[in-house]
């Protein structure tokens, strides 16, 4: 399988003069094509260390750019712009401006772990993707991604109750991301379920929505986890040089 790569020569950097005569020789059109030189001066030297300080990013320094991650990547097969090897290169060389061009798709990693399976250097690229997405959000380069909203809604319920109840997670997630629940396919799905569902199961599920399943004697686990999550958050903010002010 070929390694999918992207060209570093962008269309906007290719210049061609329609009418150009040099020393009496007509070099109009593609004869005069040149690539505008690219000068990078704004390296972010802290970027690799900061991403390595976030969970999942620890082993980014091991990468030797073989490209196995990108080659095996599930998302890359759908969108060739999704390129873990390239992003790891940019992070390690401090090319922040280049990385930011792709800031809105990095969160799309589906955690299938094919990269981590393929990686000969145990970089755990899946973790690096999550750490990078997290870094982009913490630094204010991107809004919270839908995925992060989902993770937060989910983790919040687990920490509070010990267990989750799927329908309330879905409802809270849709509300937080401003999506309507009345979508064609969701309605069809609900219809499929209700059409065949025995009354007993329907009652049980309805009951779960009201009573909310929870683990008993969970309060001490909850308190321990809440303290720990807060502690982690403070450490991460410190590692990224952010003030420890409370974020919403």
């Amino acid at each position: 399988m070929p390694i999918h790569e992207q060209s570093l020569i962008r269309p906007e950097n290719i210049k061609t003069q329609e009418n150009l005569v040099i020393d009496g020789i007509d070099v109009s059109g593609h004869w005069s094509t040149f690539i505008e030189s690219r000068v990078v001066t704004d390296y972010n030297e802290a970027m690799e260390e900061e991403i390595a300080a976030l969970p999942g990013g620890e082993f980014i320094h091991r990468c030797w750019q073989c490209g196995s991650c990108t080659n095996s990547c599930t998302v890359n097969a759908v969108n060739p712009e999704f390129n873990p090897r390239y992003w790891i290169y940019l992070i390690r060389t401090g090319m922040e401006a280049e990385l930011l061009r792709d800031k809105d798709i990095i969160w799309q990693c589906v955690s299938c772990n094919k990269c981590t399976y393929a990686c000969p250097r145990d970089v755990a690229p899946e973790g690096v993707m999550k750490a990078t997405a997290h870094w982009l959000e913490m630094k204010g380069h991107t809004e919270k991604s839908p995925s992060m909203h989902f993770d937060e809604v989910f983790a919040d319920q687990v920490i509070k109750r010990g267990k989750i109840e799927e329908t309330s997670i879905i409802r809270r997630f849709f509300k937080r991301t401003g999506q309507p629940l009345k979508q064609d396919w969701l309605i069809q799905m609900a219809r499929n379920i209700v059409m065949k569902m025995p009354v007993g199961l329907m009652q049980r599920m309805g009951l779960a929505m009201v009573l909310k399943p929870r683990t008993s004697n969970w309060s001490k686990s909850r308190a321990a986890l809440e303290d720990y999550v807060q502690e982690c958050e403070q450490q991460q903010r410190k590692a990224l040089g952010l003030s420890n002010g409370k974020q919403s």
Partner: protein
Amino acid sequence: MTERKYEKVAYYPGCALEGTGHAYNRSTKAVGNALGLKLDEVKNWNCCGAMEVKNIDPKVQTYLSSRVMSIAANEMGHDVVMAPCNGCYHNLKKAEYDLENDGDSKEVVGRLSTKAGHETYEAGQIETIHALDWIKDGIGEEGLKAKVKNSLQGVKIANYYGCMYTRPRHIFPEKDRGEGSESTSEPHFMDDLLEAAGAENVDFPLKTACCGGAHTLSDSDMSTKLVLNILEAAEASGADVIATECPTCHSGLEMHQIRAEKTLGRKTNVKILYFTQLLGMALGLSAKKVGVHENVSDSRGFLKERRLG
């Protein structure tokens, strides 16, 4: 009579099996009953953290899984815990690996367990297995064959294992150990069991492809594309049914089968059933007993036509 392997194990169903994956819960228990394998549900269990909590902090997930294993081992005295859900199975395995190999994880789990007031789980106390291991190693193909009452003969199956059952490799030290062990690159336990029940397994290239389950709602368009790939590949392989062994994959396939039809106009007819539902029907249980009516997609017509369930 000597005690069989896995004759009585701790059972960790997990949250999905009490909700969208209830059919998997029902069929797993029914198959266990039919095969004489006893399940002892972990008392007062909690969520393992699924695919989500690790993105808040991985050690929170390690703690969540360790608490489940601590109860099964220390309070109930089990040395094996079986999790049918790939997510739960994966997380327990990962916690086991981290507690064995990472000092920081061990320290954090010890601290959180003490604060929470329960015994700290120590690596090596319990073995985590999947429902596939449970039947494959507890009963085996020959044992299963002897109990088949209603062969799956003529049913063409694409076996779909997903991501979390085999990746990453390092958390599954018992796999890739040669004959008799599971393979992480070409898993075959589900193929073996369904073949023993009489089914014909098709050559399916996407056994361990990803369904986008982690982003099934947060990046639905991506998930729909990934699922459609799997469904269309299964149909191209000649499969009537995709057999699943994970509630997240299963409901992802069902949901996005509908979504692909509604948003992309691409309809697929391949049926989606848990492998435990197929095994249960082969063992002579009714479709109802294995919860076929609890699936989102409707396979009842197909099963009737094939005289199953």
